[in-house]
């Protein structure tokens, strides 16, 4: 299945990309995706970020649906 990954701020800057599509085996979860991303972008290990799936933050491992949107969000600076 295909998932949409979006990157912001420091994360987008470091990996040089603001979004991409990633192919994952059906039934993959968020940890599986992060494993793929850490392999692809080793510099991600030096960055602080939270993961949101379809606009919901989650600390837990989450099942991913086809075509879902996964965001890597560095620390917030609103206000």
């Amino acid at each position, binding site marked *: 299945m295909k998932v949409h990954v979006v990157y*912001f*701020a420091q994360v987008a800057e470091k990996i040089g990309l603001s979004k991409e599509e990633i192919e994952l085996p059906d039934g993959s979860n968020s940890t599986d995706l992060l494993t793929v991303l850490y392999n692809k972008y080793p510099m991600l290990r030096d960055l602080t970020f939270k993961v949101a799936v379809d606009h919901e933050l989650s600390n837990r491992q989450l099942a991913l649906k086809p075509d879902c949107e996964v*965001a890597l*969000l*560095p*620390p*917030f*600076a*609103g*206000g």
Partner: protein
Amino acid sequence: MTETKYKNVFVEGPITPEKIATSIAHHQVKTQIGAHDIFLGQVRADEIEGKTVQAIDYSAYEDMALKVFHEIRESAFDKFDLTCMHIYHSKGIVKSGEICLFVFTSSAHRKEAMDACRYIVEEIKEKAPVFGKELFEDDSHQWKVNK
């Protein structure tokens, strides 16, 4: 998609004093209001390792941010007895001394307006996926992190 569902809170560039005045003036027909509280976030010219912040370039994960702002709004109306509430946040370049956040709460009584305003500001700082690139005079930058 979500743009159609949630109220837009983003303003391109700084929030002007005139916009704030207009917003206040619009509430003078609401004669059940006894108290307004307004919080304004202003970009500081912080000095960091000898360099001074000239501006912050704000960006956001907009679809999610509008959903978060919507949730903050709903929960504030649930928790506090408010007549009105308005939230505006800048995106793009806001120079030091300019205003990037405008939170406006109105109620019959002061305690509700003040408690709600503080609650909303804290929620925004913690939960809204908004990012700030602090720009220095030598074209270098660093990423702001809320405390």
